């Protein structure tokens, strides 16, 4: 029962290969993410039963519920789903390209870079929420570029990318610390909340750009997934198989940086989703390969469930979701390091 691949063929000579197990995992995760979303929409100071939530979503609720669901809670949940999906996919891309589970955006300092951008806007310019998001996006992209320039000479080698990322991350963290010390107490409080990663107060204005970006990038990434799968066997083998390695890698890396940076811009540096989602997804599908779709769904499910947990456990105080993902992801990272050590890889 190791191979669960099935091929679907048409008389015209077209064929699609499906991994039944992976497909099942994707569907189950999708169901889990959507169920958690409905529950999450019903959670809060004014609880709404799941059936009412569904009815309202389909346009048949009463006016009060409609306002709460459609205006307040739905956009927040959608941002959560999109951010989780972007981080899951971005993480899977990074880990596959670096051939290293540690080569994920959290470890590489992309989150820190986005934070630096956001802090600059908050502390030096006291900018609006949108300006903060723009600052975070720019910060993430610049960090991605810096890592590219520093680590890229003749292809990425897993550990070099990780080490350069850690170095960049350390420098940016220092800059962030400096910015915080320069800030007054109001800005500092705002900055710290942003830095933990939170979905509080997210509305439709955050949903549309994220949705637009995902609508472009996700299909683009999936079209190149077959090349990425070949690249897991090493650059030489994939060249020999006719993959345009440099092109595919650059394209996917840019996509991964964009996904991660925009997710961070929308919700702050939600920690460890990008690291854990691909690993959890791979353990469920048990399939080699980048497991892109499964990671995407896993990221979305993880983030929404973590958000629900943080609201559920701490009620009105609303612990930022980044704290929950941080605790869960940190524990997972430790476990990963211990097992990698046992496997003799670290």
């Amino acid at each position, binding site marked *: 029962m190791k191979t669960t691949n099935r091929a679907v*063929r048409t008389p015209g000579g077209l*064929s699609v290969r499906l991994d039944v197990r992976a497909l099942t995992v994707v569907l189950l995760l999708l169901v889990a993410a959507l169920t958690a979303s409905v529950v999450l929409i019903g959670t809060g100071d004014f609880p709404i039963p799941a059936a009412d939530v569904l009815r309202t979503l389909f346009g048949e609720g009463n006016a009060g519920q409609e306002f709460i669901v459609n205006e307040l809670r739905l956009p927040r949940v959608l941002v959560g789903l999109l951010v989780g999906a972007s981080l899951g996919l971005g993480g899977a891309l990074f880990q596959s390209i670096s051939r290293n589970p540690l080569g994920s955006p959290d470890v590489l300092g992309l989150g820190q870079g986005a934070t630096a951008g956001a802090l600059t806007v908050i502390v030096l310019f006291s900018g609006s929420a949108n300006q903060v998001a723009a600052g975070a996006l720019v910060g993430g992209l610049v960090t991605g570029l810096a890592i590219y320039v520093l680590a890229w000479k003749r292809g990425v080698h897993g550990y070099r990318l990780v080490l350069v990322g850690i170095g960049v991350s350390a420098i940016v963290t220092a800059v962030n610390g400096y910015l915080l010390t320069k800030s007054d107490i109001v800005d500092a409080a705002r900055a710290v909340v942003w830095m933990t990663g939170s979905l509080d107060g997210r509305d439709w204005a955050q949903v549309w750009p994220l949705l637009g970006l995902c609508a472009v990038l996700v299909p683009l990434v999936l079209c190149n997934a077959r090349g990425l799968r070949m690249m897991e*066997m*090493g650059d030489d083998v994939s060249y020999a*198989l006719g993959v345009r390695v440099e092109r595919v890698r650059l394209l996917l890396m840019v996509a991964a940086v964009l996904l991660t940076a925009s997710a961070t811009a929308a919700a702050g540096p939600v920690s460890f989703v990008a690291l854990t989602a691909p690993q959890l997804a791979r353990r469920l599908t048990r399939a*080699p390969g980048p497991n892109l779709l499964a990671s995407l769904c896993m990221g979305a499910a993880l983030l929404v469930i973590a958000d629900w947990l943080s609201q559920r456990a701490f009620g009105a105080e609303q612990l930022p979701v980044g704290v929950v993902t941080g605790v869960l992801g940190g524990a997972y990272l430790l476990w990963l390091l211990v097992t990698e050590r046992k496997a003799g890889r670290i």
Partner: protein
Amino acid sequence: MSKNRRSTVNRLSAENVTLAYDQRVIAEHLSVEIPDNSFTVIVGPNACGKSTLLRALSRMLKPSAGRVLLDGQVIQSMPAKKVARTLGLLPQSSIAPDGITVGDLVGRGRYPHQGILRQWSTEDERVVQESMRQTGVAELAERYVDELSGGQRQRVWIAMALAQQTPLLLLDEPTTFLDIQHQIDVLDLCAELHEEQGRTLVAVLHDLNHAARYATHLIALREGQVIAEGAPKDIVTAGLVEEVFGLRCQVIDDPETGTPLVVPAARKARVGAASGAGTGAEKAVATEAS
């Protein structure tokens, strides 16, 4: 002694190429022809540029001057997948992804024949089965690649390259890290692919005796230059081995096959000329000359 020939009917050739990594020049004005339907073996001392030449022939290294021609076209200007359907390469460094099965890995060799809407045709299925059968790994199809022995794993990689169905197949040191039995095993497989299927094979080998026994065409390189090329019987002499590897030796007839067999001179005989740091015939110091 680079020969500047005009492009000929042979499918794969390097014309007057300069090969370099960044600033480090490995070879200059190197011209090589791979005779069609031959089993060509490239030999030479460490760092003579044999693997570099193979990388250039398989378009992984772009020559800084000169050109590599495949079917009369400059290889770099051809579409990547088209090259991959004509010329296969088994590189030295390959990574078996975690948790991949033999069948799955061999199946990946079909990549250049596939597209986004042609992911797994019946033809793919057939070729993969056929490749695994030829390399004797069919019964391992459901096993994980990580669990296999070195010899089995090399067969699996060769099967993957075969699944590419290319008339030309390049192998970079396919026998490294294998024990003697598995080395012979892999070389027998290569000979079979060459003789029975008429594929053109190009391999880089370390062992001169293996090269002399299996090759139909031998290219001896030193410091990025072709010192000699031709059938092993015609070119392998004590003088050539000394010129290329800096090793004094006798060349006798292989009692099994009649091909040239290189027997390094005894240490005492060599010590006369210079210090004999002799561990391993090929690695013997190349500086001494007498």
